[in-house]
């Protein structure tokens, strides 16, 4: 039988990473959010006053902002039923042997082989709200690359942190950005000095482990002129019955002629609200690439965006969404052209099945004085059964007449001719469908690191089981 069949018991019965360690935390706050919670977080982290002030100001913004009137259904989201801060370990480990054994077990259960762990040198593994493991390669250190969890970065590099924090996504941007600014904890800080090319992708694993524990990481990436980095984050979460909230903020600054690629594979369990603000600023000649895969969660609302502020900057956004039973993936992309001769390409692929819903929501905006811009948006959706749904809501605001914009979207089921072709060559209908779906998402999967691509193909094989009669 096919590989997908053989692997399926391993890949997923219900949710394959849906196990949980006993909760042993040195410190956790009671549920709910008020000023004392924010004060306690700042106290716990012994943060400088400016950060404490930013948190408190953001808390006020959070109270003032309404929930977004568009997008997915947030009515079940109870902000008072969430724990806003948990401290997992006493210190950030540098050596693998110092990592607490329960946490090492978690990685064991995630199935990362020993050899691969070594291969993945430089992995910053975020367990709960703080990173517990950081092993930065010596050569990068020598080049001046800073790869830390955000809390440590704030302590060790306060000047850089203060200079860039909140400049791309200010607290008043939206309700969830305000929430994140008020209670953020953990996340990744990455600084690439001028001219440095980081050849091996930097990776970060993290997971939500405590019941109803919100994950509010704050990621800040600064790529100086002519530098290059590829950052990968993959998330898996244990499945729980109560609603969990993940409200992260990612800020990326790509300076002149630099290039940053940011790859995310999100596979939250089906009770998680995944409400993330991801935004990059691309200066002259810079290239920003988002590769964004949304496989899990109850509701995802995430629109990676690029503000093209320098002449000749380029944005490339690949978005993949897979929605199954009771899932809504409201994902998309934004490209805002503010400078001359900037270009963007947005490719979105979505698959909905078993009553799932996928929505593409995007924006292409061209400012009045940004002449000679080009943008191309392609959205393709597959609907596998009559109970599922797909939407496309692209918005285009083109205020400059020299702009070339192309947008196209298609929605359909698996082509009967394609299926017939495969079946006539002796392939079973179910297997043929899996093959066609994998082919459909290929343009995005081929941009992923191999281990993610393999996992994704297995996952689709499994989810497709029994979906074709």
């Amino acid at each position: 039988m096919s590989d997908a069949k053989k692997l399926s018991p391993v890949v997923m019965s219900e949710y394959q990473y849906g196990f949980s360690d006993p909760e042993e935390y040195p410190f956790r706050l009671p549920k709910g959010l008020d000023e004392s919670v924010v004060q306690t977080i700042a106290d716990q982290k012994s943060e400088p006053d400016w950060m404490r002030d930013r948190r408190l100001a953001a808390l006020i913004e959070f109270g003032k902002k309404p929930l977004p009137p568009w997008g997915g259904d947030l009515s079940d989201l109870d902000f008072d039923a969430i724990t806003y801060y948990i401290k997992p370990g006493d210190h950030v480990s540098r050596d693998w042997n110092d990592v607490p054994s329960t946490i090492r077990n978690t990685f064991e259960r995630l199935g990362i082989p020993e050899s691969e762990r070594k291969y993945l040198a430089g992995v910053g593994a975020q367990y709960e709200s703080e990173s517990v493991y950081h092993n930065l390669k010596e050569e990068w250190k020598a080049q001046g690359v800073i790869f830390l969890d955000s809390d440590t970065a704030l302590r060790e590099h306060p000047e850089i942190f203060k200079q860039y924090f909140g400049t791309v996504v200010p607290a008043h941007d939206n309700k969830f950005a305000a929430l994140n600014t008020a209670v953020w904890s953990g996340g990744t800080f990455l600084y690439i000095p001028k001219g440095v090319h980081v050849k091996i992708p930097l990776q970060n694993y993290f997971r939500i482990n405590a019941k109803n524990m919100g994950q509010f990481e704050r990621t800040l990436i600064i790529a100086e002129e002519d530098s290059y980095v590829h950052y990968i984050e993959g998330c898996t979460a244990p499945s729980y019955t109560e609603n969990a909230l993940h409200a992260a903020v990612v800020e990326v600054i790509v300076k002149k002629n630099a290039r940053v690629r940011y790859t995310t594979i999100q596979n939250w369990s089906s009770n998680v609200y995944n409400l993330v603000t991801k935004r990059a600023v691309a200066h002259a000649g810079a290239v920003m690439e988002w590769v964004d895969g949304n496989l899990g969660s109850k509701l995802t609302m995430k629109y990676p965006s690029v503000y093209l502020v320098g002449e000749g900057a380029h944005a490339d956004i690949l978005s993949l969404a897979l929605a199954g039973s009771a899932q809504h993936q409201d994902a998309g992309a934004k490209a805002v052209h503010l400078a001359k001769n900037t270009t963007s390409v947005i490719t979105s692929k979505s698959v909905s099945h078993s009553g799932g819903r996928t929505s593409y929501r995007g924006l292409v905006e061209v400012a009045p004085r940004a002449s000679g811009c080009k943008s191309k948006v392609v959205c393709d959706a597959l609907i596998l059964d009559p109970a599922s749904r797909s939407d496309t809501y692209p918005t285009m605001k083109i205020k400059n007449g020299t702009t070339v914009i192309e947008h196209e979207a298609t929605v359909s089921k698996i082509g009967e001719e394609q299926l017939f072709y495969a079946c006539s060559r002796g392939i079973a209908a179910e297997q043929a469908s899996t093959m066609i779906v994998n082919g459909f998402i290929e343009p995005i999967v081929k941009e992923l690191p191999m281990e993610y691509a393999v996992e994704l193909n297995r996952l689709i094989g499994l989810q497709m089981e029994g979906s074709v009669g």
Partner: protein
Amino acid sequence: MAPIIITQSGDYPITVPAHTDQLVVWIQTAASPTITSTVTLAGPGAHATIRGLFLLQESDHATAQFTIHHTTPNTCASFLAKGTVRDQAVADFTGLIKIDEVAQKTESFLEYRALLLDATASANPTPSLEILANDVVASHAATTAPIDREQLFYVQSRGIDQPQAEALLTEAFVREVMDQLPAAVQKKLSTLWKS
């Protein structure tokens, strides 16, 4: 059914019953800045062909909002709109294809193309899809762009000066829609076009 021709601002609900072909033509100029229409394909075999033209200039600000709503199985709709935007004119467009859960075996296509003839002209197309059935083919395409430089070069290299070449290419752009219309409508349009 006789073609429905829209040349004035207003809200136009149109229902296409079973086994009926309906042509809808809309023309948007300064005289018809706000056109709203919901075309409902209400019975099996309903077929709607919608063709739009917009000619905007100076400080025109036009809004066209179309919903193509498939409520029964075996329906078909095709939508094509093309037009030019000059000076400081603004063309806003919303085109939603909505396919209900029961409306299987449906085909729907929407295409919107705006030609921007001045750097200050702007267009804001929002084509949307809400698809609740699965055995369907639905797609849309939208473009906004100035005159293609290579096409212009091609025409100019044949000895035609730039203003004339631009006029030629602009006419060819909207002619794709014009040619698909009944002769009476075409006649009306060409007088409009000349003014």
